[in-house]
C-alpha cells in the first residue's frame, strides 16, 4: 500500500458518500446538493437531503466503520479468521436485548423503547453474549468448538426472541420485525450524535491497545512475556466491541458480513497485520462498502428499496466465498 492507494481509497469513500446522498427514489444533482448544503435552497429536496439522506449516509459510514473495527478486534483476540460480531453471536445478543426492550414490556411491566433504553439494552445483550463466549473460550481452545458455540448462542437468543414474538401484540411485533431487517435511515441527528460519540470513544480506546493488539498476534503466552497486560487488554477489547456492535445494532439492526469480511480485505490489500496500518484501512473500507451496499439497497430511480441487511448478505456472502477461493483459506 502506497500513499497513492490511500488517496484513491479516500476519494472512493468521498465519491460513494456523495453518490449515496444524491441517488435514491429521486435524483438530486450534485449542484443542487451543494446549494442545499450551503443553505441556499429550501425546497422539498432540502428536507430530503438534510433530514433523510445525509443522516442515512452518515449512519452508513459510522456503521460500516464500527462493525468492521469490531470484527477486526474479535479476529485478533481469538486469532480466528471467522470471528466477527455476527458469527460469534454478539449481534444476536444485541438483538435479544432489543427484542426484550421492544416486546418484553408487557412481560416486564415497564417499557424501554426510548432511544437510550434501546441502546443500553442492546449493549448489555451483546456484552452478555460476549462474556459467555469468553468464558467458554477459556476452556475450549479450538476454533470449531467456539464457532459452533457462537451459532448455538445465536439460536438460543433467537428462540427467546421467538417466544417473545409469539406473546407480543402486533404493533410491537411489527416494530421488531422492521428492526430485524436492518435500516440505516429514520435516525435523527441527535441519535446520530450518540452513536458518533460512542464510536469516537471506542477509537480513543483503540489507540491505547495498538501495541497489545500486535503482540496478541503472537498468542497470549508470548504477548504476556512481552509485557502486555492481558486482562486489561481483553477488557478494553470487550468494552470497545460491545460499545460498537451494541450501539450500532440497536439502531441499524443486525447487519451481517461487514464485520467478518472487511478486516480480511484490508489485510489482503495491506499484506501486513500491523494494526497501526490496519485500523485506518479497515475504517475506510468498512465505510465505503456499507455506503455501496446502501446505494444498492435504495434501488436508485425506483420507488422501492431493499432492507440493508439483505443487501450486505447478498454482497458479503459471495465476497467471503471469493476470498476463500482466492486465498485457498482464510488464515490468521
Amino acid at each position, binding site marked *: 500500500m502506497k500513499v497513492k492507494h490511500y488517496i484513491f481509497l479516500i476519494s472512493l469513500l468521498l465519491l460513494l458518500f456523495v453518490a449515496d446522498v444524491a441517488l435514491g427514489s429521486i435524483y438530486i444533482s450534485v449542484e443542487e446538493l451543494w446549494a442545499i448544503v450551503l443553505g441556499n435552497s429550501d425546497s422539498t429536496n432540502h428536507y430530503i437531503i438534510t433530514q433523510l439522506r445525509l443522516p442515512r449516509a452518515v449512519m452508513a459510514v459510522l456503521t460500516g466503520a464500527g462493525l468492521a473495527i469490531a470484527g477486526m478486534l474479535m479476529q485478533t483476540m481469538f*486469532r480466528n479468521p471467522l470471528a466477527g460480531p455476527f458469527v460469534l453471536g454478539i449481534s444476536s445478543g444485541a438483538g435479544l436485548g432489543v427484542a426484550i426492550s421492544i416486546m418484553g414490556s408487557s412481560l416486564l411491566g415497564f417499557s424501554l423503547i426510548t432511544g437510550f433504553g434501546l441502546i443500553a439494552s442492546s449493549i448489555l445483550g451483546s456484552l452478555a453474549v460476549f462474556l459467555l463466549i469468553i468464558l467458554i473460550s477459556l476452556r475450549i*481452545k479450538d476454533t470449531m468448538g467456539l464457532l459452533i458455540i457462537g451459532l448455538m448462542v445465536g439460536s438460543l437468543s433467537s428462540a427467546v426472541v421467538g417466544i417473545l414474538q409469539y406473546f407480543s401484540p402486533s404493533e410491537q411485533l411489527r416494530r421488531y420485525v422492521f428492526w430485524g431487517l436492518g435500516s440505516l435511515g429514520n435516525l435523527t441527528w441527535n441519535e446520530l450524535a450518540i452513536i458518533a460519540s460512542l464510536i469516537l470513544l471506542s477509537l480513543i480506546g483503540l*489507540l*491505547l491497545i*495498538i*501495541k497489545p493488539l*500486535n*503482540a496478541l*498476534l*503472537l*498468542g*497470549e*503466552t*508470548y504477548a*504476556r*512475556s*512481552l*509485557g*502486555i*497486560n492481558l486482562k486489561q487488554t481483553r477488557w478494553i477489547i470487550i468494552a470497545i466491541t460491545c460499545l460498537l456492535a451494541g450501539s450500532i445494532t440497536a439502531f441499524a439492526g443486525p447487519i451481517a458480513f461487514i464485520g467478518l469480511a472487511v478486516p480480511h480485505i484490508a*489485510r489482503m490489500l495491506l499484506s*501486513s*497485520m*500491523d494494526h*497501526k496500518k490496519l485500523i485506518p484501512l479497515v475504517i475506510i473500507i468498512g465505510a465505503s462498502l456499507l455506503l455501496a451496499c446502501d446505494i444498492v439497497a435504495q434501488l436508485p430511480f425506483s420507488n422501492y428499496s431493499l432492507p440493508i441487511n439483505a443487501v450486505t448478505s447478498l454482497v458479503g456472502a459471495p465476497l467471503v466465498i471469493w476470498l476463500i477461493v482466492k486465498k485457498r483459506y482464510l*488464515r*490468521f
Partner: protein
Amino acid sequence: MLVLQDIQIGYENETIAKCVGHIAFAKAKFIAIIGANGVGKSTLLRCMASGNHLLEGNVSLNGIAIRKVNLDDLAQQISILTTDRSISKSITVNQLLEISRAPYTNFLGSLTAIDQEIINNIITDFELVDLRHRQLSTLSDGQLQRALIARSLVQQTDYILMDEPTSHLDIHHKAELLIKLKSYCKKYGKTILFSSHEIAMATALADQVLYFNDEYIRFKSAAEFKENDILQQLFPSPYLSWQDGQYVLKQLK
C-alpha cells in the same frame, strides 16, 4: 539474579516437582534442563517466566517475587521460547521480530534506529536474511523454530527460557544451534536455560544441568552431572547403558 527457593510446582494442588533450598542462576551461563517426558520441564519454565503453576516457595528476580515484578521490567529481563504454536502465521519473520521489541517501544510500537539495528544483527546471526519477508505459514518447521529462537533473543533479556529449542531441527542443525546459543551466552553475558531431549549434546555443551529426579529438581555442574550415574537413574531402561553422557544400546539376546 533469578532464584528458585523451596518451590513446588504443579496443577491444582497436585505437586509434580519440587526443590529443596536455593537454586540460583548466575550470569552468562548455558544451562540444560534434563528429564523424562512429563516430569515438569515445561511447567518449571513457565513458572520461572511468570510465576504460573507455583504452588509453594518463591521464584524471585533480583530479590522481587516474580509475580510482583512489573510486567514491563519482566519483559526486559526474561524472554521465552515455548512449544505452543498459537502464533498468527500471516505475519512475516521481520514483523515477528519487530513486535518482539515491544518492551522497549512507545505505546504505538514505533521502532527506533537502535531497534532496527538489533533486529538486523539477529537476522544476520541466525541466517534469516532470505526468510526475512516470508510469512510464517510458508516456512518449514525448522525455519519457523529458528525464527522463534531469533524472536526470543531480539528481546535482549538477561534470562532466556527455551522449551526444546532443538525440536524440529535435523541433527547437524541441532549441534549448530546449541553451539551458537552458547557463544551468544558468553559474548553478551546472557543466561540461557533450555530443555532438551538431546541429552548427549546438551550435557556436553552446557555449563550446568538442572535435572528432575524423583520429583526433585536438582542443580549440578555439567561435569559433576556426567560423572555420576545420574542418567541411568533418570532414564532407566534394560536396553540402555550410560557412559559419560552418552548411551549405548545393549545387545539384545
